[in-house]
């Protein structure tokens, strides 16, 4: 494959177009972050209301996974709020019942 020589320079400075981001609506390629965000909130609520320690810990994990898979264009406030909610669920469940977590068997 031959590289273009100087006489046939393909560059055209007058034809420069600015980059336009594709509209983030409709389908998302990878919905992992959204699903994990949702699960995190559900687990946090279960941990707070039903006083289940394992739910609270699962919420923390979901928040971490959501953060790791999030895009730069995603709202950081929402991620931060779900993370704080999960941490508060862990704290509240241990404040109400300081016993260590037990395995079900």
């Amino acid at each position, binding site marked *: *494959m031959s*590289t*273009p020589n100087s006489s046939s320079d*393909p*560059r*055209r*400075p*007058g*034809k*420069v*177009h*600015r*980059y*336009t*981001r594709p509209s983030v609506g*409709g*389908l998302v390629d990878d919905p992992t972050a959204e699903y994990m965000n949702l699960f995190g909130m559900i687990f946090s609520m279960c941990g707070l209301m039903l006083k289940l320690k394992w739910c609270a*810990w699962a919420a*923390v*994990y979901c928040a*971490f*996974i959501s953060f*790791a*898979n*999030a*895009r*730069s*264009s995603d709202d950081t406030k929402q991620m931060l709020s779900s993370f704080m909610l999960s941490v508060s669920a862990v704290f509240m469940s241990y404040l109400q019942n*300081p*016993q*260590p*977590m*037990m*395995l079900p068997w």
Partner: protein
Amino acid sequence: MKNAILWLSLCYVCLMVCRTKSANPHNAEIEDNDFAEFEDFEDDEHADTAQTDKAAPSPKPDHPKIVMAPEADIDPDQADDEDEDDDGLVEIEGDEFDHFQDDEEFEGFDREKSSKVKGQEKPPDLKITPVPAYLQNNWESFYLEMLMLAGLAVYFINFLAGKSKNNTLSTAWFNVHRSLLDEHFAFVGDDGTSQEMQSGVLVKESENIYTLWCSGRVCCEGMLVTLKLLKRQDLVSTLARMFRPASDQVIIKVMLESAEIDTFVMCLANKKVIGKLQKEMVDLNYFCPEKRKLDDRIPPTFQLLSEISEASTAVIDTKVITALNQFENLIEYIHISDQYCGPRIQDEAQPSKMPETTKIMMFCFNVPGKGQCSPKDMEAMKPLMMMVFHCLEKVRKIRLSREAKTKADKNRQRLAESYSKASHVQRSEAAQERREKKRRAEKERMMAEDDPDRQRKLEEKTLKKEQKKKQPKVKMMKIKAM
């Protein structure tokens, strides 16, 4: 003399009886005082309580039977006399003190309670509750919590390491290809947000996706390079990759100018992904229903979908075949289309409106290493970028024959008609529904009308309308008088 002795003996016996009566049958301490005679009652009370105690170990002593012992001092003569005096035996029974056993004689005395109290004297059972786990100074009981925290720490460490690795790989790719891109484009690397255009910006879409926009070249509006790296920052994905290995990918999307490409759709892809592409991509699904036969020189791992065979033959020339053989594992697919509109939206059953199409060339390359790549592996991808520019120049020069052009145009027209039919059907269905609703509303209004005259008038009105609709439409034409 005998009588005197008899009287003396009788007196003596009486004295003895009195003495025994006044004596302490229960061995109580008797004080020799004025109140000695009252001490009998105290002794008798104790006797009552002793009698009421059922659990008393010692048997209740009955009132003693007092039998006079024979007098030792008495003369034998008197003894003979005493034999005659056996009738003088005094037997004292316990009946005289029964009133001490009577409950009614005493006030405020609970016999049952006292017996109960005496009955509950066995030692109580002590239940020793174990000390709760959280009050123990024993951190070992929190082993699950330690495990959770350890898991989070591992995840976080993996996140930092994965993020750093991806950043290194993307930067390495950019550094390797920068010079080549600068030769072909006037402007390399624009983030699209800043007011002044800044070159050399590799946009970070997420921790594993990086994009690079290049523009300012003949025959194309621009080129978007997407580095779709593996999710090394996510521990769950890393563990999943142990079971299903995957590669980092570089997706190059060249936006062609309208006049630069003729009308054809083709896709040369690895047989593992060609089926999925044909299902998902709208243009491939419609224009390339069947797979075409490939040149024998091309490795059998590749398959071809093509609308116009002469166009695909023109694109896949000797140099491309050489590259296909050399980089067989690295080339995922090459998709060239003038009707590209992206993947099919699963939710929509039948889209009524024809989607907007663009003319594009898409190349998907796998980074060598199968997930275990290093920055040095980016050097091996430079020839693939050169192949992209070669294909671009080739596509720009392709001109279809008349038959091929007619065939392509017919296909596009058929597609446009199908969309317009679908939209027409939808519109007519919507209109029919609206008419039905209106008719139903009118009927309901008629039924709800109380006045029979008004009801009749409404009925006549609706009948007239229906008759008018049934009549054929006649066009009135005006003829000008000469």
